[in-house]
């Protein structure tokens, strides 16, 4: 039996000799492994990044909204207003539930505020002081909305909105006036960019924040869109949720609410992204299957082109297992080479995607191991049949081959 090191050396020589064909066969494997690596890596990066966003705000954040699911049945559209959470209900929460460390109710409207007679498409949020704290917002200029602002017409711009205004020639927006529903709002602060995702309302960056009482002036009733709250450590969520449901039913018997916690969302997201990763992996596997068949084809051609060589080796004393090992190792080396190039390309693609989308770049050892493992496995799987065929050639007929 030929030692393994010799088999590998022979295989490398054979591959080097058939450069062009080798290269062509590699393309399928390169693309296959590359896409699997890129997709798996992207999946993991997205997961890591979104988890990070949640963690930044703390995983003990919950949001309370009115339930959408079961309130639809009897009422229809005109009842919706009745089933909104009211400011009074939101205000009472902190007293009733001392385990809620911070509570921030807010309203959200889309509108076309005007600046310098030009219309801006931006969300307007009615907020309280605690909104900044819960969302971990920081200011680049001025101050945030204060609870002493009452019904005054002050506005704080999100980073995106400020940039928009600057583009329209506002320069420093501090002290400038933005008109909304006919009223002029003096800009008193500008926020730093807040990372999107997690529990943060997406309206922050592109929007303008005004005092919540002022926002009620534009509504028929003092109703809010969502309540954010931070839980004290060691709070039982199940019990809190049923307590909150009872609380709101006290005011509106038909009311159902929906409580979402960061932890719950993270778990859901992890589950989803796992599914996503699996799905993408499956797509990559299809290209690998195609690549594998390409390799099998190349190996079959190699076997038929090298019948004479096989005959000579057999005459010199190679056993069937030697010949099989030789072609199997060639096939594995072929696939591994493709796999390594694929890994490099896949990681490169993931890096570019991470930079473009602002994800955390991260290459998992498992992804790399998967790439190497899968390409070797493909080499063995698709190389086995040609290798067996080579080993079973009749040495006499093979020798006679020209």
């Amino acid at each position, binding site marked *: *039996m*030929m*030692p393994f090191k*010799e088999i590998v050396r022979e295989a490398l*020589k*054979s591959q080097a*000799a058939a450069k062009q064909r080798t290269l062509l066969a590699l393309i399928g494997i390169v693309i296959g492994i590359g896409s699997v690596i890129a997709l798996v890596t992207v999946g993991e990066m997205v997961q890591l990044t979104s988890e990070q966003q949640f963690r930044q705000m703390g995983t003990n954040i919950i949001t309370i909204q009115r339930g959408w699911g079961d309130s639809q049945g009897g009422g229809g559209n005109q009842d919706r207003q009745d089933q909104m959470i009211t400011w009074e209900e939101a205000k009472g929460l902190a007293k009733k539930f001392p385990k809620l460390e911070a509570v921030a109710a807010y309203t959200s409207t889309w509108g076309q505020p005007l600046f310098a007679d030009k219309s801006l498409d931006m969300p307007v949020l009615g907020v309280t002081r605690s909104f900044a704290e819960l969302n971990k917002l920081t200011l680049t200029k001025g101050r945030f909305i204060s609870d002493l602002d009452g019904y005054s017409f002050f506005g704080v711009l999100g980073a995106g909105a400020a940039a928009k205004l600057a583009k329209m020639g506002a320069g420093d927006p501090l002290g400038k006036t933005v008109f909304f529903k006919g009223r002029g709002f003096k800009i008193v602060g500008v926020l730093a960019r807040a990372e999107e995702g997690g529990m943060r309302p997406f309206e922050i960056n592109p929007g303008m924040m005004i005092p919540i009482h002022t926002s009620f002036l534009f509504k028929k009733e003092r109703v809010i869109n969502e309540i954010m709250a931070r839980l004290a450590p060691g709070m039982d969520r199940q019990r809190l949720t049923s307590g909150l449901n009872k609380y709101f039913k006290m005011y509106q018997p038909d009311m159902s609410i929906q409580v979402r916690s960061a932890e719950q969302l993270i778990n859901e997201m992890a589950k989803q992204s796992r599914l996503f990763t699996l799905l993408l992996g499956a797509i990559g596997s299809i290209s690998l299957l195609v690549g594998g068949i390409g390799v099998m084809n190349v190996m079959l051609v190699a076997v038929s082109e090298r019948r*004479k*060589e096989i*005959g*000579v*080796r*057999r*005459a*010199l*004393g*190679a*056993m*069937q*297992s*030697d010949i099989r090992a030789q072609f199997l190792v060639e096939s594995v080396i072929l696939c591994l080479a493709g796999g390594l190039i694929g890994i490099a390309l896949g990681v490169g693609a993931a890096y570019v995607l991470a930079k473009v989308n602002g994800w955390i770049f991260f290459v998992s050892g498992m992804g790399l191991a998967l790439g190497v493992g899968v390409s070797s496995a493909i080499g063995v799987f698709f190389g086995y049949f040609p290798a067996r065929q080579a080993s079973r050639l009749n*040495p*006499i007929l093979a*020798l006679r081959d020209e």
Partner: protein
Amino acid sequence: MALIELRGITKTYYIGDMSVDVLRGVDLTVEPGELLAIMGESGGGKSTLMNIIGFLDSPSGGGYQFEGQDAGHLDDNELAHIRNQKIGFIFQQFNLLPRLNALENVMLPLVYRGVPPQQREKVAKQMLKRVGMADRMAHRPPELSGGQQQRVAIARALSGNPSLILADEPTGALDSQVSQEILDIFLELNRENEITTVMVTHDPKVGKQCRRTVRMTDGHLLEV
């Protein structure tokens, strides 16, 4: 003890429903140190007999004793093993592997024997020197002439220190002057090192120089 003892060897090939008797009872004894030429027209069964003697093929019937051991019915691995240990093949078309250089080609039988690299390189270099190819060791077969390639092939056959050299038309692809040079190597190896050689040829000039000649006709073997 005879090196080769064939008794009533038959070989029948089946092609569909037809059977072809290629060997019809061949008796042959070859003693150690002999230089034997097997002559005859093509289709007479020379190659089949060579394949059986060289353990590339098994006989359909009859008895084959090699070095006193029954060698008639061996499985594929046993055949490979005995080829590797006992036989040195030389072919009409040289059959060197074109991607390997002369030295690597000569080392190949030792690779399958599991001989460590340094030792097999030493042996291979010796053999190449012996056939006058010491200065061409790094050349690959396409860079060598026919005569040079056959010299390398002889070195390859010798590298395993075989009990028997089997040469199938070793000069068939060479012009007459080079043929004589190659034949001289065989004669010298046989004379000086008592290497048992069985050679298939249809060249009477070659046959004449061998100490013993047999003729294969229609599946039978006749002493000349």
